[in-house]
């Protein structure tokens, strides 16, 4: 008998109870009751054709759980008028619109609440009415501002016995309806701000037979069981407020990346294919390559002899390119020390990283040393658990789109490491910087639609003026303020391009030049880019002083060190830097600065 699928996971500890899942109404109300009032609101509109009842409570609770720093406020439209509710929501410009509709919202004949004709005489007309209803929905969704996220759930309930075919047969009309809904889902998924709940994911969390609550449907107009409403609310809230994707994966080798102990059997003795019944390891390699292609950082932490591992990594049938993995910590030292060095080189925090190993002992050792890291055991001789692991890893790292910066991330880390090695070898700092052939490009034309800029603002921790995070609608509103400007900074040098690495946002007013947001990727540190950008601002706007809206966060030490270099004091709150002070503090700059948008802005 096969073992129960299990996979040891040591997840980072949550400091409070805010992450508990509101699987029932009591828990949902408890989450909403314990939220802190007075925080910045996160406005959502729930649009559905039926009475929202528990779905409203559960959606609000799930979003409140996902956004503990916000005060989630939920409005519902007039149920029964889905397209109008969405159109009205478009005018309100909320942070997110959540749309849940059922078959009956497309044609009342597909529900139980209105006694109308069923059977073969109406079959064709039902399909036609649904087609028109879906077209209306598309038109209303097109009117929602691009800065408002839209999460959509297509019909989740079984059809009533409206068509004259037995329940075990799909029937041409039911298939035609499914085809219409699938086409609708494709159309709206192509809109940049829309996402659709995956029906197969939903089926894993809410079995079809437990979804409809006939009592609640016929008495109150709410068609869902509480458990189904909870699963649906979970799916919608995940789309409306996506969690940050993990950035890096550190993997063990023996019995993880491949089957077998390479030190015992040699490079030819390890396996990862179907023929040797070790396909799971091959699939894991394929997933790692896919993650690397999407900009996820990969590293190895293995207790082995480096020479034999290097030979194994040269095998041509390996499904992940060794060049996609950097660095390789292969020796006999504790893995916690290996992980520490990898995190230092990547310059990302442990909570953005996953560690995969087959040994519970190694996982425990790493977890104890790096409490934020998510440690996952690679299952042995358990394909069911292994396949689940692959999907789980995909979900941890998945992001909607792969940017240019994602594609060059590993190269930029290698070049940063090369620069660091040069420094470690005692090369003169000024000579190093002067010889970098660095180019800083500052784009003043970028707007709220610049995805990379928005991403940087919301994920950068260390060089971050005040830690402020934005929803898309907030970011668009900020850039729409009087005198607002945005500077998106790209960088390249002789080691390669880093892409867009910094974002500065502020206001040029009569009273002065204000910098409200300033972030820079840690990959771009130690190149004096921050000085070059500030120097350009002084040149461009010619203010006598610059006002920085600094706030101390747990992680923005590098930013504060920089500001202190300008002001001479530990920054707390608003900091003012006079032109003369900056000129005196600014070190020699060797960058070639290219401005984009200069001509337009005069």
């Amino acid at each position, binding site marked *: 008998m096969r073992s129960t699928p299990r996979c040891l996971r040591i997840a980072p500890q949550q400091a409070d109870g805010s992450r508990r899942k509101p699987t029932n109404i*009591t828990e949902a*109300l408890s989450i909403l009751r314990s939220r802190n009032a007075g925080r910045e609101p996160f406005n959502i509109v729930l649009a559905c054709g039926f009475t929202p009842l528990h779905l409203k409570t559960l959606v609000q609770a799930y979003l409140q759980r996902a956004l503990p720093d916000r005060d989630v406020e939920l409005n519902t439209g007039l149920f029964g008028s889905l397209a109008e509710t969405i159109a009205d929501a478009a005018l309100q410009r909320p942070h997110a619109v959540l749309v849940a509709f059922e078959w009956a919202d497309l044609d009342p004949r597909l529900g139980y609440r209105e006694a109308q004709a069923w059977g073969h005489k109406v079959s064709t007309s039902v399909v036609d009415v649904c087609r028109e209803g879906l077209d209306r929905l598309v038109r209303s969704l097109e009117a929602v501002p691009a800065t408002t996220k839209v999460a959509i759930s297509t019909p989740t309930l079984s059809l009533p016995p409206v068509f004259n075919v037995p329940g075990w047969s799909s029937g041409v009309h039911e298939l035609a309806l499914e085809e219409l809904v699938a086409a609708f889902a494709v159309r709206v998924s192509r809109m940049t701000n829309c996402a659709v709940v995956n029906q197969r994911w939903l089926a894993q969390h809410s079995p079809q037979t437990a979804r409809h609550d006939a009592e609640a449907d016929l008495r109150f107009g709410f068609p869902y069981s509480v458990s189904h409403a909870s699963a649906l609310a979970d799916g919608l809230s995940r789309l409306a407020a996506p969690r940050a994707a993990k950035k890096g994966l550190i993997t063990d080798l023996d019995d993880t990346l491949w089957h077998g102990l390479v030190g015992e059997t040699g490079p030819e003795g390890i396996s990862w294919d179907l023929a040797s019944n070790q396909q799971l390891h091959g699939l894991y390699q394929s997933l790692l390559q896919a993650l690397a292609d999407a900009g996820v950082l990969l590293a190895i932490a293995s207790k082995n002899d480096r020479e034999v591992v290097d030979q194994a990594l040269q095998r041509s049938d390996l499904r992940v390119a060794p060049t996609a993995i950097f660095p390789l910590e292969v020796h006999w030292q504790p893995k916690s020390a290996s992980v520490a060095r990898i995190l230092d080189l990547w310059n990302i925090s442990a909570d953005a990283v996953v560690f995969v190993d087959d040994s519970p002992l190694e996982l425990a050792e790493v977890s104890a040393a790096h409490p934020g890291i998510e440690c996952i055991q690679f299952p042995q001789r358990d394909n069911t658990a292994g396949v689940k692991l692959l999907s789980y890893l995909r979900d941890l790292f998945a992001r909607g789109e792969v940017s240019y910066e994602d594609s060059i991330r590993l190269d930029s880390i290698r070049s940063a490491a090369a620069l660091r090695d040069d420094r470690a070898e005692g090369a003169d700092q000024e000579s190093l910087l002067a010889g970098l052939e660095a180019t800083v490009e500052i784009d003043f034309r970028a707007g709220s639609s610049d995805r990379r800029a928005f991403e940087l603002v919301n994920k950068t921790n260390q060089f971050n003026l005040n830690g402020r995070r934005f929803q898309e609608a907030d970011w668009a509103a900020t850039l729409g303020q009087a005198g607002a400007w945005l500077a998106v900074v790209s960088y390249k040098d002789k080691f390669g391009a880093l892409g867009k690495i910094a974002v500065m946002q502020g206001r040029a007013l009569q009273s002065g030049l204000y910098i409200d947001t300033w972030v820079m990727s840690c990959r771009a540190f130690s190149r004096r880019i921050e000085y070059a950008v500030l120097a350009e601002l002084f040149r461009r706007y010619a203010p006598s002083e610059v006002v920085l809206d600094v706030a101390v966060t747990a992680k923005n030490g590098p930013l504060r060190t920089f500001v202190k270099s300008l002001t001479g004091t530990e920054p707390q709150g608003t900091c003012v830097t006079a032109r003369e002070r900056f000129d005196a503090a600014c070190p020699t700059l060797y960058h070639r600065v290219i401005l984009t948008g200069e001509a337009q802005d005069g």
Partner: protein
Amino acid sequence: MADVETRLVGCFQSVFPQLSEADIRIASQEKIEQWDSVAAITLVNVIEEEFNTQIDYDRLPELDTFGKVLEYLTVDRGID
């Protein structure tokens, strides 16, 4: 009985967090503005979750005070 009453007070507090414990014990749909039809259904669900029971929806209109709900649970549903 005392335990059922305390747990029922907790249910009412979940749905009507603004009410004190004393107010809850004398609460009625007539006096509590927030106790509308939506709140009534929510309250029923919370009670069902707390006591792992099912409330007969046909009896819903008559369960319009804290005391009547308590009596329904202890007498009709036999919860003690």
